[in-house]
């Protein structure tokens, strides 16, 4: 895997919040009936996390499962583990209507973190039509939405730290948007 590089190779910017490309991440699109016992068990046994509730993400170490739609989950694992996890999930879903596919390379991942100067929540609230207040967007939440004109998903991984996923081809646009919105001096001061 020495040849594998993430879209922006770890680029970062610092404003009132920091924006960092998080590098390669194993990501698996898992489609199937969320109520099916075999799927639920596959998530807990193979991924090692609880089945997520609507608009939430469950995590255990570097592994996570995020709710994407009524019949879709996003499974996150270390990049190198993805092919093996896909194979195991596919085997576990044998006999039921389901689909597990490795999408690790289709995406880019960014971390947006607040600093003493300002909140990461404001960076996102400038770009996404989502209530980013602490009361509304709590840790463990995960949303599919848009960032200006790009489709993204993001979740709160700390009080003021967010993990954001976008299409690999739009990584540069998303990075530029986040960096621009995080520029010092443009804090809004509401969160």
């Amino acid at each position: 895997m020495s040849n594998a590089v993430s879209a922006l190779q770890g680029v970062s910017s610092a404003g009132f919040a920091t924006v960092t490309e998080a590098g390669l991440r194993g990501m698996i699109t898992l489609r199937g009936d969320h109520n099916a016992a075999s799927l639920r068990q596959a998530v807990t046994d193979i991924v090692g996390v609880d089945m997520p509730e609507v608009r939430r993400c469950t995590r255990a170490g570097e592994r996570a499962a995020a709710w994407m739609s009524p019949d879709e989950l996003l499974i996150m694992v270390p990049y190198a583990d993805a092919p093996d996890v896909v194979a195991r999930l596919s085997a576990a879903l044998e006999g039921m209507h389901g689909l597990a596919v490795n999408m690790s390379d289709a995406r880019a991942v960014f971390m947006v973190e607040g600093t003493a100067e300002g909140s990461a929540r404001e960076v996102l609230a400038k770009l996404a039509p989502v209530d980013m207040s602490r009361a509304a967007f709590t840790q463990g939440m995960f949303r599919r939405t848009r960032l200006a004109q790009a489709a993204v998903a993001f979740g709160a991984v700390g009080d003021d730290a967010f993990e954001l996923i976008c299409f690999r081809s739009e990584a540069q646009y998303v990075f530029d948007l986040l960096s621009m919105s995080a520029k010092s001096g443009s804090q809004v001061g509401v969160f």
Partner: protein
Amino acid sequence: MSTRLSTGGRLLDKTKQVTFQFNGRRLRGLQGDTLASALLANDQMLMGRSFKYHRPRGVVASGAEEPNGLVNLGRGGTFEPNARVTTTELFDGLTAESQNHWPSLDFDVGVLNNYASRFMPAGFYYKTFMAPAPAWKHLFEPLIRRAAGLGKAPKDRDADRYEHFYAFVDVLVIGGGIAGLQGARAAGQAGAKVMLVEQTAHWGGRAPVDGVEIDGQPADAWVKNTLQQLENMDNVTIRSRTMGAGVYDHGYALAYERLTDHAPAQDIPRHRLWRIRAGQIITATGAIERPLAFAGNDIPGVMLASAVRDYAVNFAVSPGDRTVVVTNNDDAYRTAITLKQAGLEIPVILDARPNGGGALADQARALGVRVENGKAIASVKGGKRVTAVDICAQAGEGSVLETIDCDAVAMSGGWSPVVHLWSHCGGKLLWDEGEAHFRPNPDAAPKGAQGQDFVITAGIASGAMDSAAVLADATQAGKTAAVRMGHIAPDMAAPKADAEEPAPLLPVWKMPQGAGYKLRSKMWLDFQNDVKVSDVQLAAQEGYESVEHTKRYTTIGMATDQGKLSNINGLAILADSLNEAIPAVGTTTFRPPYTPISMGSIGGDASGDLFQPVNQTPLHQWGSDNGAYWEPVGHWRRAYCYQRDGETVEQAVHREVLATRNSLGLLDASTLGKIIVKGPDAGKFLDMMYTNMMSNLKQGKCRYGLMCTENGFLTDDGVVARIDEDTWLCHTTTGGAARIHAHMEEWLQTEWWDWKVYTVNATEQYGQIAVVGPNARAVLEKLGGMDVSKEALGFMEWKEGQIGGFDARVFRISFSGELSFEIAVPASQTRAFWDALHAAGAEFDATAYGTEALHILRAEKGFIMIGDETDGTIIPQDLGLHWALSKKKDDYLGKRAQQRIHMTDPDRWQLVGLETTDGSTLPDGAYAVAEGVNANGQRNTQGRVTSTYHSPTLGKGIAMGLVWNGPERMGEVINFPMLDGTSKTAKIVSPVFYDPEGKKQNV
């Protein structure tokens, strides 16, 4: 003279001088001034020229309603036209120029229109510039454009940046006067999440100017105290310099924050557009004073009484030493009292009411001011400045009783609640006879998704006319909003203020009431657009009964102030002319934004590099480093060609085509859509999506397929590969990936929801590289790995394995007619794989080729391209693709539509090749003409060019086109007229120009 007073100026910091420029003159103002107050302090009463007659105009108001004081602000990248002087805060280095004057503000040639004004009544343009039709475009319009118009259009790119912000609140309070503050306090104390916005830099609205006392303290102190309380509440956000711009469905509202207009700074967004979702919206938007219509009411020095008071109290500016006050209500007496107390002269107060005013009138008289009841202004004297007024009886026709010298006139026609935001989303209005204004009808509020009321008015915006009523109304509004959001109303009494019992207002729509035509034609209703009482009356006389029609005919209310001062007066005149009651005539529609907002704020961050997302493939950087000449394909950037030193685009394209035909070409095909379709019903599903059979495709095989819309038209094409028993991989066109994925999901979710099929758009998971040319196999064998021999991997087969150590899925498909392998590798390794191919292919002159070479290669082979040969009106049968239309299947999307009469019409144009007789290249889109002319007298046509290139392989122009009865007319020569009057002739040939037997790809 207008001048700075020694006392007053509650908003000024008199210790800080500010210098600015107006029409090239350096002037001084004070910190806290608006541009309007600073100009007045410098005796610059003349600020602009009117739109139509170029009459001299001075400032008439002190806030957002100002129609006259408009300037071009700034220079170059920060230039902005039509900036209102009353809402422009002064800063050091501000530069402003007055508008609509030539050659200068003081001497303007366009003012000749003024003397011709009796020849330019309402509808003048419509009546005069009617015929002949071409004269409008070539003569009249250019003439009018030069003569009329306000600010100049900016010429430079906007140097500033802008942003949006999404906010979610229980209660949005718009307006930071005492009503808004109190409403926010009540809602905030109930525990609701509140946002309070105020368009100016200051809180408290008019109350401090009007000397209101609240809970026994001056308004200023109460405002400060209340603001402090709000700032201490965690659940309340307050923003000044933020205007509530519009109220929309479902509690959506826009607020326009001006961050740096008052203190230009780099790198901070200039404006921020707040996109707010509010459960309840309280509009505490105040009221606007109405002008009075008397002859000469537009002469500089005639101002709203409240504005005169604002300038004196807030900015220590007097519009003149001698100010005549003219009114139909008690409020204007405050202006007289204020000026008198500041030591200025009030020669007379003209009160149009026969019985005059109440307590305030008594107070004015006690100060020694002469008050004349039942009197009016017959006309104002003066040109660029008021010099005197002629006085008459309001009840009469305007016989002059007396002339009084003065240098300013303060007028008041009563107050109209600002109902704009209430009305944006459907709130209805009531006509209040007593106050002669429209006010919100609380029983007909804007409704939310559940049918619930979601806008509440507060204060004078509700029609509460004194401070006691304002505060009671606002307290209730705040409580109601909070309760509607599920909170419990706080036990909070309204703050105390004195109730007033003014003498009743007398509606005065023109002055004097019996004024003849001569006076009426000098009574301005709309100052900016030069609409007079006589114009509205003429419109009525000519049959314009609807207020909306009259608005457009006369242009009343169509200026940048959107009739904030003129609308009520205008429709009262219209109602009078039509002999209708005012509410029967009604208002024009209130539309957002409340005052103009910058285009930049609407665009937000979407400018420059962030204008639109650009999708980049994993090889984008390589392209940038290697001379890629980019073209947009959907949101992708694809290399049209890769230019080497000194090469033209055309030379690069030709080199790439020949290198591919002769040895080895490499194409970044990563943008091709890749949709995985899996499930027990996937085969059945794909048989419906594609015109040909996909369910019987064998594992390990590929098949080219066509997709049509339900109307039968070709919408996409691509190669489908069978992955395993219940999994297929569908390739789409570059622009089609998201669209086709959505198309599939729509059918699955709405029509065949019970079919067991899952789709995933895996386009970006893989980079895909086409390895093309006679040496394609050789370079792959050199890299080593899986067997790619003809026997192991036949044409239209695919295999998974490793090449050069990379995990790869290899498809033996060809869009060029050459031996070709399309190789998908994980996106994060695509660049490394591409580099490996170049390294291994160096001995074969491996050449990266772009989309234009791709197009030429496919056109030489007669392969169609979605978007070239198709345009949304083309069916597969037009393109000779009958072979791809399954006859075995009962149905597929489009099958039924393709059986309609028009689709089976033998006269539909058909795909053929076109070869010019002289070897030149036909222009794209050229039409072939036929005999005769059509019903419109145009030449009949019999075909058109859909793709056309110079083929470097064949050394001549080749084209494809759709031609009437084309396939039957092989060898026939048809004629294509060119734009320059010449024409080209082309022979109808087979669309396959190169290697018709397919020998080259099948090796």
